């Protein structure tokens, strides 16, 4: 597999504020990445720089082996689907879809029909954007980006303006489309579940850099640092150097030596057929959700027993001790 995009030491600063800090990564053709992180962390800025809509302060970007620094956004062959569909309101669905394809010289009637079918909008080809539902609009935007045949497709939280049910449905649908068409993609989101569906590899972006870049499984098994633990909520942080999986926590004292953490029980809910306790750990100022045994009697305060054998240390390189 050859390299689709390669970024080296990319930085972006607005005045004294650093948004992206010496970022380096490489994405091969047909790979699908998700970038996840808290809102306002610079994920959108990163995509805008890759697409050529913003200029980096320093660093290099190569698309298909060639540097694109200083090259116009319109010549980069990097497609971008924005948060809003941004369809041209005076053009029909078909005209919207063919807009980029005509400019890149890749227009063909067969491809247009094929894309319209792929996004299930054949019947609406002569409709105007204002006549479409939110989901249909975002599907048109996706088809329009694909029609221009970009070398890499960037998606910037494209489902964030949709209602939750539709969002869920579109996630699977878009992922299947990207797989079927072997599209190289970077999907930006602040939603952890969405990141796991849309990318084989997840880059956790915070403070202008990737805190960890790995598959969801690896992040679950070996979180790189306290931020990853706090962000993904799969583990409980014992201290700055160690963590334990939430699944190993018990609410009753056992014979195994354990670390005891006191937590306030805020609320209980039911999800996926399980009772879920939402607790607040005052010492860490952290809210957590964990499974409750069915026979558990509610109290205001509970003790979380973390067996010592399941407490792991972060890899040394990630603790700043390297």
């Amino acid at each position, binding site marked *: 597999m050859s390299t689709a995009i390669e970024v080296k030491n990319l930085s972006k600063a607005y005045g004294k504020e650093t948004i992206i800090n010496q970022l380096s990564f490489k994405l091969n053709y047909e790979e699908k990445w998700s970038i996840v992180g808290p809102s306002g962390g610079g994920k959108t800025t990163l995509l805008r720089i890759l*697409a*050529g*809509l913003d200029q980096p302060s320093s660093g290099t970007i190569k698309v298909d082996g060639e540097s694109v620094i200083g090259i*116009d*956004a*319109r*010549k980069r062959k*990097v*497609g*971008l689907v*924005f948060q*809003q569909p*941004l369809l*041209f*309101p*005076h*053009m029909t669905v078909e*005209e919207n879809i063919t*807009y*980029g394809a005509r*400019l*890149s010289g890749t227009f063909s009637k067969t491809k247009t029909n094929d894309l319209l079918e792929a996004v299930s909008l054949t019947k609406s080809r002569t409709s*105007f954007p*204002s006549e479409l539902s939110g989901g249909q609009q975002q599907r048109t935007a996706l088809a*329009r*980006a694909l029609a*221009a045949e970009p070398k890499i497709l960037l998606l910037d939280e494209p489902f964030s303006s949709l209602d939750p049910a539709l969002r869920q449905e579109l996630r699977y649908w878009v992922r299947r489309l990207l797989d079927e068409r072997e599209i190289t993609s970077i999907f930006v989101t602040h939603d952890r579940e969405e990141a796991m569906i849309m990318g084989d590899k997840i880059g956790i972006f915070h403070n202008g850099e990737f805190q960890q870049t790995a598959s969801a499984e690896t992040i679950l098994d070996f979180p790189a640092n306290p931020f990853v633990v706090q962000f993904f909520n799969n583990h409980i942080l014992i201290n700055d150097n160690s963590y334990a999986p939430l699944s190993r926590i018990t609410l009753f004292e056992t014979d195994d030596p354990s670390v005891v953490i006191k937590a306030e029980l805020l609320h209980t809910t039911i999800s996926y057929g399980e009772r879920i306790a939402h607790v607040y750990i005052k010492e860490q100022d952290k809210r957590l959700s964990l499974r409750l045994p069915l026979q558990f009697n509610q109290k205001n305060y509970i003790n979380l027993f973390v067996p010592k054998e399941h407490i792991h240390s972060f890899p040394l390189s990630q603790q700043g001790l390297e």
Partner: protein
Amino acid sequence: MRPKLYFRLITALFFIFPIVLLLLQSITTPWRTREGINIQLESFTVLWSDPNLWTATVWSIIIGAVVLLFNLFIGLTAGKALAFYSFKGRSLIEALLLSPLLIPLLAVAIGLHLFMIRLDLADTWLGVALVHLVPTVPYTIKIFHHAYSQIGRPLLEQAENLGASVSHQFFTVELPLLKNAIRSVTFLTIVISLSQYAITAIIGGGSVITMPMIFFPFLNSANPPLMAALSIWFAVPPLVMYIAVEALLSLAPYSPTFWRNRT
């Protein structure tokens, strides 16, 4: 359906009814009690017999068209810059661009007259067209500023991302979406330019004859049919310009087809 009914009533009362009255007045004898209303076309004959009417009309249209072109150029560029770019002193520039509306037009005209004399533009139609920018450009900038804000920068970034050059973006995205703004600017500019008497007289020095120059002497006539005919004649240049602009706009890419309206 109620708002539609109100709209039709208001349109009939304030737009159609006055125009019909004006048309009737222009082709009938003065309306007096106990005298019958007789059809006459003398008002138009008197109007058309004025030796300066056609020259003034043609010059009004030429000056109006040039004023419109200047307005479109200044308005599109300034409006886009104000809507999309943030730079130091932006509010100051915005205030400066609107300031001609705050200063009495005559004061500006007298100052500009000296300037025009130095540039050899006094007593020329181009000088008149330039001075007509003073009362029109601020409105035009405001209209395009608003129109570009509504389009929004992301839509143009989307076009750019799909491979559109600046000119392609302008013709395929901006122009079709700015049509309503262009229509408003056309009417506003022509009507304002057409109504300028004082500044046209000062800068034109009497050698540039536009429609108000011949309209005002007729005001003394106190002949209602003649005044009505003149008023109707006054509406001709804006209509001509509107039709011309509309015809040009219909050539723009992704324009509405007559069987389907584009929203």
